[in-house]
């Protein structure tokens, strides 16, 4: 009973949050709603007994990713309303709903529910984190390491891409210097 209430509650909350995130015209609102939705999603993980994932979800998504986005938004003019000039709303909603229905149909098809045998059955008496760790560092070690390298590469690339001219600090420069730097930048661009 408790599980059901929790499910429906969080389901409602995530749906609303995400819906706000995709429909609002305020970028800040969207960011906030998204972050909230992420946290609510971690609740599902906890309900499903995937504690480790829940924790990761909060740490990585709500923490790291959202922080990144927040940083990113600082570069852009976020105070301005986001213009959304969409030609046909029906296409957008129609396509999405169609896709959703199809996915449901596929999952609801009886053949999916049968014949699935667990490859890595849960180990009785071990915590979720421990279980995951055992699989992750045995069978999925190589992908794990690859993912780690990928993250590292992504980090470096993110810094390299975004961090040009990071050595110039706007707060420490005089106004004239800032104008010069901007001019120089424009020249480069052009």
């Amino acid at each position, binding site marked *: 009973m408790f599980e059901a209430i929790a499910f429906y509650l969080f389901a409602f909350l995530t749906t609303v949050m995400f819906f706000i995130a995709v429909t609002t015209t305020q970028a800040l609102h969207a960011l906030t709603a998204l972050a909230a939705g992420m946290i609510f999603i971690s609740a599902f993980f906890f309900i499903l007994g995937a504690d480790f994932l829940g924790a990761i979800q909060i740490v990585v998504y709500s923490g790291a990713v959202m922080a990144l986005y927040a940083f990113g938004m600082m570069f852009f003019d976020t105070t301005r309303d986001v213009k959304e000039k969409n030609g046909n709303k029906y296409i957008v909603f129609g396509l999405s709903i169609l896709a959703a229905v199809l996915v449901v149909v596929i999952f609801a098809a009886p053949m999916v529910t049968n014949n699935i045998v*667990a490859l890595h059955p849960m180990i009785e008496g071990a915590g979720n984190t421990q279980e995951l760790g055992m699989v992750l560092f045995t069978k999925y070690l190589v992908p794990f390491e690859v993912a780690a390298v990928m993250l590292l590469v992504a980090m470096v690339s993110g810094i390299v891409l975004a961090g040009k001219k990071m050595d110039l600090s706007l707060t420490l420069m005089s106004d004239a210097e800032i104008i010069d730097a901007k001019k120089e930048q424009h020249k480069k661009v052009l």
Partner: protein
Amino acid sequence: MEIGLNHYLVLSTLLFAIGLIGVMRRKNLLLLFFATEILLNSVNIAFAAISHYYGDLTGQLFVFFVIAIAASEVAVGLGLLIVWHKRHGNIDLDHMSTMKG
């Protein structure tokens, strides 16, 4: 009122649809990224739920990797976005048409 796999799947689908709506209607690239995050998360829920109901850890591992990928994607994507913004002064999708065939 037992909550079964199908409940999660329906939820996941619903969120996926919301994500798709976002993907299609957002013109601001940053907000488009938000929508992709929603897509990824909806799939994550489905994975976790299936993993739970079948007692198979593979699903959870997938979620793990998806999160890792999402994180890297954000890092690289935002980097590119910033570069673009620096060059063009906007991150509007309609202005990105160099791939016109």
